[in-house]
């Protein structure tokens, strides 16, 4: 009951005219960004963060805007998957498998509205999952001391590469790189200058927003330049939608699918190292083995094959918010970017968030519910509008993305040095992507580095320099075991899972992060 009354308070916050408008704007922009190949939830949110801050939005409105973009992008990814067989973002990859065949059979409209409903169901129930699970996790998290927190951060880095990672050394390198960058600037405990070499611009450290926008948004621009991919995603292919509403019978047949996939997706979202891509992959594979064991209809335009991954990835995106809000430890690229939003607002996520800033948490959750209904409304009747965006050539779009990145960074720092730093991050991001080094751990390292070090030093102060405090409680030992298993499991399984996912990937490259 306490939860319901908190949620009620949240609705009172979210239902102001300003917040409703921001939620609508976020949903709209998010769907557009999700639909565009090359712009996914992570870089979409990334380029909007500096803008939201330069506009001077308060914490709750800014969060509402940006999480609506996040949910919107998850909805939008399916549009180009279905119409063009090009996933709009990483998690929408599995939707291509049955969505595109349906479109080829002239049932594109049906596939779009079915997947819209599926996205709604996944996100709606996952948001309920968030409401119920996050406060429970908070209770556990309140038992954490500095040592446990340090181990928890280690766990986050160890599992971030995910089960499909083929080279854990590269994930570890990326994490260390991010942590190393976070160390630059004045030491928070003693005030010593670290790695600044007398450069005044570095005294405050490197602003994580510069790194995020450079690594996520600008590196994408470089990728497009490299491949001279300037044409429109829609190209010459006709974007016919056809009949919009599916038959009631088809919808009914999809109900059990939705149930199963919501649960799988949500769990994949909550667990460290899984995320939305794996959520949609697992939902699709399990659904296939549950209802179509002989492989007769899946892959040939079965509506259930469209519904399962869409429910899965949207449920996972709700699930991924659980560890981010309750523990302050994100498990995916986009939630890492959302963590950046909170940190920029001077809000420390984690268990105390629920007691110290209940208005922020519950306002945000209420906004997710509202945004979800808006997205359903936007995505079924107006889907034709969003398909038009696929006709805009990327040679016009990508420079706009680059310029908005500059505008945002200039808006918050006003410094030439910082803009150049952002370009440098863009280049480094491009090289790292070429070398198959994941960028998400770099971001997370920059975001969490100082917090991680502070917890280590607090733990050491408590134990008076005795390192055994890091394995000093059953909770810490359990976290170590999960971290080590999570790090080693992909070494054994990684190649197998990866090759399975790759096998179903359409030819084109998609945006980094999920």
């Amino acid at each position: 009951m306490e939860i319901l009354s908190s949620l009620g308070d949240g609705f009172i916050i979210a239902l102001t005219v300003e917040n409703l408008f921001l939620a609508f704007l976020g949903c709209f922009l998010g769907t557009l960004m999700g639909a565009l190949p090359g712009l996914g939830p992570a870089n979409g949110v990334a380029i909007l963060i500096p803008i939201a801050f330069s506009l001077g939005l308060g914490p709750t409105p800014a969060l509402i805007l940006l999480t609506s973009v996040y949910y919107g992008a998850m909805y939008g990814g399916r549009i180009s998957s279905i119409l063009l067989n090009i996933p709009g973002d990483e998690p929408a990859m599995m939707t291509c498998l049955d969505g595109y065949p349906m479109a080829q059979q002239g049932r594109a409209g049906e596939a779009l509205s079915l997947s819209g409903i599926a996205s709604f169901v996944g996100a709606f129930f996952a948001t309920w999952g968030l409401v119920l699970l996050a406060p429970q996790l908070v209770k556990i998290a309140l038992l954490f001391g500095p040592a446990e927190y340090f181990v928890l951060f280690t766990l986050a880095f160890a599992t971030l590469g995910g089960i499909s990672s083929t080279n854990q050394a590269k994930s570890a390198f990326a994490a260390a790189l991010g942590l190393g960058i976070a160390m630059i600037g004045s030491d928070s405990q003693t005030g010593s200058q670290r790695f600044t070499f007398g450069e005044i611009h570095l005294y405050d450290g490197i602003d994580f927003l510069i790194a995020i926008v450079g690594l996520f948004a600008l590196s994408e621009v470089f990728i497009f330049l490299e491949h001279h991919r300037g044409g429109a995603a829609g190209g010459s292919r006709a974007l016919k939608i056809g009949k919009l509403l599916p038959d009631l019978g088809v919808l009914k047949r999809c109900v059990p699918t939705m149930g199963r996939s919501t649960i799988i997706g949500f769990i994949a979202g909550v667990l460290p190292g899984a995320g939305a891509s794996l959520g949609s992959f697992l939902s699709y594979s399990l659904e296939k083995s549950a209802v179509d064991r002989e492989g007769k209809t899946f892959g040939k335009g079965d509506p259930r094959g469209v519904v399962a991954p869409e429910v899965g990835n949207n449920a996972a995106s709700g699930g991924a918010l659980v560890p981010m809000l309750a523990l302050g430890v994100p498990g995916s690229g986009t939630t890492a970017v959302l963590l950046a939003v909170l940190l920029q607002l001077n809000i420390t996520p984690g268990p105390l968030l629920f007691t110290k800033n209940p208005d922020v948490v519950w306002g945000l959750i209420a906004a997710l519910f509202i945004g979800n209904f808006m997205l359903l409304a936007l995505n079924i009747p107006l889907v034709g509008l969003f398909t038009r965006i696929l006709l805009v050539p990327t040679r016009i779009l990508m420079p706009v993305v680059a310029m908005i990145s500059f505008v945002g960074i200039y808006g918050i720092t006003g410094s030439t040095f910082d803009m150049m730093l952002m370009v440098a991050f863009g280049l480094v991001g491009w090289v790292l992507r070429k070398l198959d080094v994941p960028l998400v751990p770099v971001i997370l390292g920059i975001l969490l580095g100082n917090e991680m070090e502070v917890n280590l030093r607090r733990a050491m102060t408590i134990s008076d320099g005795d390192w055994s405090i890091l394995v000093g409680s059953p909770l810490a030992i359990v976290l170590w075991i999960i971290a080590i298993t999570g790090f080693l499991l992909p070494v054994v399984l990684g190649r197998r899972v990866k090759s399975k996912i790759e096998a179903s990937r359409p030819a084109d490259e998609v945006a980094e992060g999920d």
Partner: protein
Amino acid sequence: MSDRIFGGVGLALAVFYLWAASIIPDSFMVDVIGPRTFPYIVGSVLAICSVFFLVFPDSEPHWPVSRDFLEIVFAAAVMFLYAALLPELGFVISTVLATSYLTWRLGSKPVGALLTGVATSAGIYVVFHLVLGLSLAKGPMGF
């Protein structure tokens, strides 16, 4: 080979990082492990991973041919120049130039690219500066 080079660069970075960590000055405030311990741990992880890349490199990634590679270098140079010229020329003019260049390189015809540049610059100026009130770099003519 790329991974070996990457490992070499990573190792050099790690050594530099460890050295830079060793010269972090102490301050009058002290805690048990001091400001150097965590950077040492981070630097060691970098070093270990880099050695791993040297010993077990992955298969070669698809590097762009030299022409496409130059494309990236030039684009980056244009962006650096953009950042440097922004306070001098102001937002509108610099953005027209930068956007036109990028659009041209992504495959527009020169005239079309220039038009796109003007439209993008004006569009961002109107939306972000006039409507949303964001401060953009001012040039000699006030925009």
